[in-house]
């Protein structure tokens, strides 16, 4: 399942904390697409995902907004 999570307007550490909450509810194999305009979000989400054992499968940037797609692995 693909889950859209719009976190525009939220700043560090909220994008990571909200993504984690959503990931807890998701099932293994689900992909959460996080959209954020926090300038720290890309680096933070990539590092959080790796440490939490999930996989970043896509990163898209459009101006100030980034979309990070994270697949739940376990």
């Amino acid at each position: 399942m693909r889950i859209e999570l719009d976190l525009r307007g939220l700043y560090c550490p909220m994008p990571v904390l909200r993504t984690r909450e959503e990931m807890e509810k998701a099932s293994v194999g689900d992909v959460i697409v996080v959209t954020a305009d926090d300038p720290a979000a890309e680096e933070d989400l990539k590092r959080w995902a790796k440490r939490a054992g999930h996989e970043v499968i896509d990163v898209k940037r459009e101006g100030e907004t980034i979309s990070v797609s994270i697949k739940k692995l376990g």
Partner: protein
Amino acid sequence: MNSKDLDRNNLEESNKKAKRILYIQTSGVDTPERLYAPFILAMTARAMGVEASIFFMIKGITALKQGVAEGIKIGNFPALKEVMDQAVKAGVKLYACAQSCELLNMPRTDLVSYATVAGAATVNDLVLDADATLCF
């Protein structure tokens, strides 16, 4: 293979992986004497085959404002910008805390382009990955 050989193999394996040092800079342009050390230590770490990163947070980000390092020069040291450039050239990675810009009312667009903008998860990750962390 006996246990001694195994121990030696494990030791050689761990020596192959580059060590990492993280420097955290919280001091800013109001204490210019504190700004040089992380760059000098980090570029020396690179010369020692050690991966080195500097994370600038709180007042530390004031040293990453475009045009600022050019104007800082104390004692017989070269301009801070010169040392900063040498460190970047040596492969030292620079990170700037986005929320510290908000804290100090500094537009994020004023930051030098060669620093990666990052946040809390990145600091924690860098600290956990580092073999040692030094704070200035």
